[in-house]
């Protein structure tokens, strides 16, 4: 028994296999029960979400013989937001011969996560990373190549080895299309059925096990029930709780949040990642923030004027009056410090009045030196599409003048608590990819999200799901079971309630208000006073929401306002848990920076004695405080130290 908890000890069994870390996964795979190939087709697996994790899991499971139903909110499974990942995917191939290894990738990931991840999970991630590259190449992913035809690698934020594989600035797109194509092959073969424009609105739990989902057909508004033997949540993170983030407009937290309310523990919600290189906010109308791959930091230099409120154009500021603050403070990593460090430093200089651009919330990312050193052609080859994107959005040419960048909410390391098998605390409910909490600790390294999504989908869940199905006694369940009607009824009631309020304010107005509150008080820097303020404000906002929101139309139609309203209602609940978690964790670690806990130099200061655990929250019912369960983290292989990138 690995977890200590205050209430239900069984829920927190992380199920980490015994033995040396290098052998755990092999041993576990041997220990997992197998299912007779002929019996696999009798199992129906419901996969929610078609990003890297969902599409790869659906493909791999169908290849094994399971019957898979896949649901996505987009009009096509190919559009999941994994597609927007730019920079690359890590693997421990050591092709560049620069001393990389599974062990080093494992070490870097645990350290990069600021010692708040589970060692066994991270080791397994590093172990399967190579197989991911092999498989993606076999699927036809057009990774960058050297002239000799071998794969090309680059180094990426926070890593001192070149272990990142990439396809121009569209790596996420290419990996997703690879997984999507593998899944579509299974669609043609009859093993996978895709249900597009369906939003999972509720989980169905029967006899304590996840046995189905209720989806809203976004075209007709009809509620549809689907029964299965297990449910895989691959629905991504909750970054859109901040309203402005790099996530897609429709990325949302409703699926994981509703599963949380059905009993799945929610781990480390306060671990949110703010990405340092995004295009700054330009006005109130802004609906999203656009990320520029942090690979840009390989050749771009970040600076601000030394003088406060320096209104000069960048070209007019002489070299001596520029502050290359990352290079100055972190001479060995320079512009390549991990995301949290880069983001926080940008915030510090902006708060200091040295930010640039019309709002003052931006710093320069300058390519002048690289252009001089490497020439326009090399820079265009490496970053051409990113430069183009920047120019599209800002109408400024980064070949001529430095980019302006600023941090933005990007990724959430927190998510549903899962055990070593990626199963949540509800048996039969698995969470894969960004939806779970497992591998990145308090901070995710660049190019590791794609790795994790595909590891979970292609190479982990297909094994561990079999282990669950092989041992669980699962009675036959279909959608005539009364639990489905009951859940459908509750969903219908909730939607009707939203539609009947007929207030004066739009769902987006509330969302914007919530986002600003969180960004200011629970974003890059957090302190007790600000968090307490949020904790008081959010319930009030929620109450106002359910009195003042305006949702036109009916449920029985294509109704985007209703979709949004339903999701915002969940953000108004989830945000409170996020704040509560941030408040309880009185240390700084990774993306969670408590201003009360910093070193004299202003760096994040962990408190291993008191906070070396996973904080997993249990929903205790509406209006009740959630219950915290703690899964202690043991570091047997990577000894925690204060991260230093000096």
């Amino acid at each position, binding site marked *: 028994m690995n977890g200590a908890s205050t209430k239900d000890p069984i829920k927190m069994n992380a199920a980490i296999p015994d033995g040396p870390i290098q052998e755990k996964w092999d041993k576990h795979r041997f220990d997992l029960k197998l299912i007779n190939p002929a019996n696999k087709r009798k199992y129906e697996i419901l996969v929610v979400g078609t990003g890297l994790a969902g599409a790869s899991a659906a493909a791999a499971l169908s290849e094994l013989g399971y019957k898979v139903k896949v649901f996505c909110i987009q*009009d096509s499974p190919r559009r999941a937001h994994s597609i927007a990942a730019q920079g690359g995917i890590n693997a421990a191939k050591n092709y560049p011969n620069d001393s990389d290894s599974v062990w080093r990738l494992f070490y870097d990931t645990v350290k990069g996560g600021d010692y708040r991840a589970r060692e066994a999970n991270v080791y397994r991630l590093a172990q399967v990373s190579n197989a991911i590259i092999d498989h993606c190449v076999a699927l036809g992913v057009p990774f960058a190549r050297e002239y000799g035809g071998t794969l090309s690698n680059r180094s990426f934020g926070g890593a001192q080895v070149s272990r990142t594989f990439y396809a121009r600035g569209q790596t996420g797109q290419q990996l997703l299309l690879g997984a999507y194509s593998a899944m579509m092959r299974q669609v043609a073969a009859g093993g996978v059925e895709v249900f597009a424009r369906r939003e999972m609105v509720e989980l169905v739990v029967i006899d304590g096990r996840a046995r189905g989902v209720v989806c809203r057909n976004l075209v007709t508004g009809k509620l549809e029930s689907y029964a299965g033997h297990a449910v895989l949540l691959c629905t991504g993170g909750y970054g859109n709780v901040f309203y402005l983030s790099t996530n897609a407009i429709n990325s949302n937290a409703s699926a994981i949040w509703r599963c949380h309310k059905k009993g799945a523990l929610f781990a480390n919600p306060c671990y949110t990642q703010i990405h340092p290189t995004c295009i700054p906010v330009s006005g109130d109308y802004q609906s999203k923030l656009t990320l520029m791959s942090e690979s840009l930091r390989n050749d771009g230099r970040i600076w601000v004027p030394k003088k406060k409120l320096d209104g000069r154009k960048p070209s007019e500021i002489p070299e001596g009056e520029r502050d290359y603050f990352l290079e100055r403070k972190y001479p060995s990593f320079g512009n390549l410090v991990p995301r949290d460090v880069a983001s926080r430093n940008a915030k510090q200089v902006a708060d200091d009045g040295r930010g640039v651009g019309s709002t003052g919330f931006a710093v320069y990312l300058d390519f002048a030196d690289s252009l001089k050193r490497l020439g326009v052609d090399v820079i265009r080859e490496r970053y051409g599409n990113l430069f183009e994107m920047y120019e599209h959005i800002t109408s400024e040419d980064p070949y001529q003048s430095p980019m302006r960048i600023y941090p933005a909410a990007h990724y959430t390391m927190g998510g549903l608590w899962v055990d070593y098998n990626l199963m949540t605390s509800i048996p039969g409910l698995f969470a894969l990819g960004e939806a779970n909490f497992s591998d990145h600790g308090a901070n995710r390294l660049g190019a590791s999200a794609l790795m994790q999504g595909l590891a979970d989908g292609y190479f982990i869940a297909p094994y561990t799901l079999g282990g669950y199905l092989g041992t669980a006694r699962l009675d036959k369940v279909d959608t005539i079971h009364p639990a489905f009607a009951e859940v459908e009824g509750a969903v219908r009631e909730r939607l009707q309630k939203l539609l009947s309020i007929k207030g004066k304010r739009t769902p987006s107005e509330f969302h914007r208000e919530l986002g600003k509150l969180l960004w200011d008080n629970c974003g890059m820097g957090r302190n007790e006073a600000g968090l307490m303020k949020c904790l008081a404000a959010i319930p009030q906002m929620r109450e106002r929401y359910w009195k003042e929101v305006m949702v036109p139309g009916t449920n029985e139609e294509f109704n985007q306002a209703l979709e949004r309203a339903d999701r915002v209602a969940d953000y108004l609940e989830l945000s409170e848990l996020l704040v509560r978690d941030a408040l309880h964790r009185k240390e700084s670690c990774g993306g969670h920076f408590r201003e009360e806990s910093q070193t004299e130099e202003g760096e994040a200061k962990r408190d291993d004695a008191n906070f070396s655990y996973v904080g997993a929250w249990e929903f205790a019912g509406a209006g009740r405080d959630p219950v915290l369960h703690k899964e202690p983290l043991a570091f047997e292989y990577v000894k925690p130290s204060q991260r230093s990138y000096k």
Partner: protein
Amino acid sequence: MNLTLKVWRQKDGASRGALETYAARDISPDASFLEMIDIVNEELIREGKDPIAFDNDCREGICGTCSLVVNGRAHGPQRNHTVCTLHMRHFKDGDVIVVEPWRSRAFPVIKDCVVDRAALDRLTAAGGYISVPTGSAVDANAILVPRDSAEKAMDAAACIGCGACVAACPNASVSLFLAAKISQLALLPQGQPERERRVKAMTALMKAEGFGNCSWERECEATCPKDIKIANISRMNREFLLAALSSAEH
């Protein structure tokens, strides 16, 4: 800036639609086109009216969800743009802007400017993949891909599947979308074993789905947000011809 929008409104697939006029007031030139519609929609919602339905998601030009025909051009007037990355600075104060959905028999309207593009998924399912079961891949560097082929494959693979090529084609042909995938896989060594099967299966479906035929008008190429070239269609035709002539069926 202030603008007049004429937007296609259609309750659902079974209803008839028509253009309706809306005013967009106080729009910042730095706002994106979709943010401009957001502003109009917020106003409509506040009034309890049905907001304009339109597909959108990533809003950074990569997911391929957004699909508006602006003043007769799929994705609007800017070359190599999706409509979500089109900014209002490209319009003038007082402009009248006509907004319509993709038009094709294969893309039926769901509501307003939202269409059903599932046909593109079915085309992919017909053969837009390499059949390699998870776990059976060789070491990634065991497959050498000449850099030039990899680059060309990547040019084709950049397709975001938005369907603007269909919307822009005078014949509503899906050739560019199809050719991009067929080209990508034909250019890579991994794609060779299924080369003939793929081109035949995928092109056969394009007719069945009700798309038109390519007559080299090049509107697709001029509209494609990812600048995918019609050379890919030539390659598809070449693949098709070779497959038809050389395969052993009878």
